[in-house]
């Protein structure tokens, strides 16, 4: 019963403005937060360049996972295994670049390998486990929530088994450069995040695969009747999600100079929160890379700001929960 908007020019322009405001609401909220923090933090500490860089660096891992889970949510799925896959990828990757000759190393007799080997191993772990998720969902028709819940436990178990439950540390400086180095003053993790954002944006908006992801979320049956290969697309989605977890594992290991099998526990929840705050809809078919990135930034800025304002971490959790719920309420109203 809804008709297209009538062509009265005054009304259309007002509508255009409203729809613009709605679309970019999350950006305005983010900018508003920044302005408030800039005013209220003591000694202008929020706006110091080092602080801003810190915020971005801190959100890179959450951000990478958020990009992965965003794909799943757009296609009416979810990936709960991200944190565990990250943990497993991290210990595998770290174990290949421990200082040669160190007696506590996981593989004490391993010669010095180029850092790139460890990177590929971490990415490979993520890709493989993600593909298994996709296969379970596409072939056996297991609901994504259940399939990835199972994988969450399995991958965490693998991480403990592989590392004997011990931290994997004393890593090669080459590898640590990924977490601590910089190119022209820009920290490497931020560069990696930037490239991931760009690639993900291009994939979603400029490839057939990207359109298929939105189509599945918009109406899976219609997509199938229109010739979309649902199974293949889903495997692709979860494989990429796993790949992002692998990448996140590498970055965080290189930054903290150690991988523990417990690494990444609960990270998937922050990632889901970022995607949702950024406007990714649990009803499927809606979600953007820039929105998700802003969602991750909001979480980062919020935490940083509350630290600077000396808000107790206990209260911070409450605030973050409220923000997630409010974001969903706004989203609900927007789509009505």
């Amino acid at each position, binding site marked *: 019963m809804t*008709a297209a*908007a009538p062509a009265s020019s005054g009304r259309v322009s007002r509508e255009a403005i409203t729809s613009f405001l709605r679309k970019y609401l999350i950006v305005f909220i983010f900018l508003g937060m920044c302005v408030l923090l800039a005013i209220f933090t003591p000694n202008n500490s929020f706006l110091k360049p080092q602080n801003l860089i810190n915020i971005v660096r801190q959100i890179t891992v959450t951000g990478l996972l958020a990009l992965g889970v965003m794909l799943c949510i757009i296609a009416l799925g979810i990936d709960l295994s991200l944190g565990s896959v990250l943990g497993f990828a991290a210990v595998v990757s770290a174990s290949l670049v421990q200082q040669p000759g160190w007696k506590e190393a996981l593989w004490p007799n391993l010669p010095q390998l180029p850092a790139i080997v460890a990177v590929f191993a971490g990415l490979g772990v993520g890709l493989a486990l993600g593909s298994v998720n996709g296969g379970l969902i596409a072939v056996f028709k297991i609901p994504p929530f259940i399939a990835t819940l199972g994988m969450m436990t399995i991958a965490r178990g693998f991480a403990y088994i592989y590392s004997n439950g011990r931290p994997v540390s004393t890593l090669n400086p080459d590898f640590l450069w990924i977490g601590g180095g910089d190119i022209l003053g820009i920290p490497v993790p931020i560069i990696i995040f930037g490239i991931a954002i760009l690639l993900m944006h291009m994939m979603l908006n400029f*490839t057939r695969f990207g359109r298929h992801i939105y189509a599945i979320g*918009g109406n899976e049956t*219609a997509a*199938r*009747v229109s*010739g979309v*290969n649902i199974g293949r697309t889903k495997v692709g989605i979860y494989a990429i999600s796993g790949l992002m977890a692998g990448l996140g594992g590498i970055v965080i290991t290189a930054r903290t100079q150690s991988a523990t099998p417990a690494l990444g526990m609960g990270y998937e929840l922050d990632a889901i929160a970022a995607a949702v705050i950024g406007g990714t809809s649990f009803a499927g078919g809606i979600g953007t890379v820039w929105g998700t990135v802003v969602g991750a930034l909001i979480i980062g800025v919020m935490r940083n700001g509350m630290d600077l304002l000396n808000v107790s971490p206990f209260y911070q959790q409450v605030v973050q929960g409220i923000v997630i719920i409010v974001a969903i309420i706004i989203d609900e109203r927007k789509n009505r």
Partner: protein
Amino acid sequence: MAEEVLLRMTGISKEFPGVKALDDVHLDVEAGTVHALMGENGAGKSTLMKVLAGIYTADAGSININGVPITVPDSATALKLGISMIHQELSPVPAMMVAENIYLGREPLNRFGLVDKGLMIRKAQALFDKWQIDINPRATMSTLVVAQMQMVEIAKAISYDARLIVMDEPTSAISEREVAHLHRIIRSLRDSGVAIIYITHKMDEVFKIADFVTVFRDGRHVSTLPAGELDRQKLITLMVGRELTHLFPKEDIEIGDVVMSVRGLTRKGVIEDISFDLRRGEILGLAGLMGAGRTEVLEAIFGVTKTDAGTITVNGKQLTIGSPADAIKAGMGLLTEDRKKTGIMGVLSVRDNMSIANLDRFSPNGILRKGQINAACEAQRTALALKTPSLAQVIKNLSGGNQQKVLVSRWLLTLPDVLMIDEPTRGIDVGAKSEIHRLMSGLAKEGKAILMVSSEMPEILGMSDRVLVMSGGRITAEFSRAEATQERVLEAATVVAPAA
């Protein structure tokens, strides 16, 4: 009894962002009458009824029942006031029993305060017995076919013992036989003093059942007349505000060679030994009652469902079709029956909805050629006179007719030889309907072969060069355009065929 005004709505206005859905509308309904609301989609019929049922709140206006002013803040209040409503879109709880669905939210309780299932089932059975509805109240809702669900919904609305029952397109999903049944129920309710407001797009029904007809156009009240003073042409004129010259403009053109041959197509228990040829420039109508297996034939051909036997040949090449993707590659398109469930991707843009079936050609190496997509979609938008502010518009904001045009475009972009269309004009308004018909006729003229399933007899008779009639999963008759009459088609559709 017929003189008593039961419901009086005056000065009702309701505005949605960008649309004035109702503009100073009035409506009087007398007890013991059937009052039809007519109008194109977007005319405001459903909106007015949703105001009455407490789903929307009007911006202005008043509602009186038996002369007493009332307010209807929510559906529960509406029910208490004796107003029940059958909605256009069914909302069953699939995992629950039929009886539980009927008494949802007002389950009879035993003395321990627990739900008394036995009593509930007995009450449902009594209700079904009274109205001669042949459905098991213990059956799980999800095992019912759509027509049965619709009957349950109707039974539910009656079970409230309402003074006024609103029926919003109650017959859009049920067959002629069930329509007749529903009409018997309506007459009997009317004779017992209940007022019925009946919204429909089907004019034949209006003349069969209605005492009064109110026509809406663009959110305004156009006129209210006794049904006896109206005829089809007059009604159409009132609804669209213009003379419709051709309702069904299928042009006579030269029918070409066979494009598609189907032989012995069988899916056990659903369709049996379906064989026919489809020719270039031809519109082949597939008629039959609900559940005759028409949609299932299209789905089997298109690879949506698996088949047990049979061959499909397109352009002389025998095909193995394992999925819709294979069918599309072979030059077929399928516009599905249920626009919302299997057609549109609601939250996506017009452009995404239009281009989805042809992305393989729009992105030969996986990278989208956006310029090409835009140009192709723009061309479709112009060719089909699609009413949308832009190609980026979210499709669910379009009217039903325009959504249907987008779906037609989706398949035209794939340049199919064979286009299968399931219920081309279900739930869309008269103006858009005739545009879709003109479009189909034009496509046939261009040499496309069209296989059309329709439950509307005038559409079948008006549009088809040839008519196949199905019953019980089999083809029971074939008529040429000249041979096909309403009586013949209906007779073949009600032949009791041996179960497939």
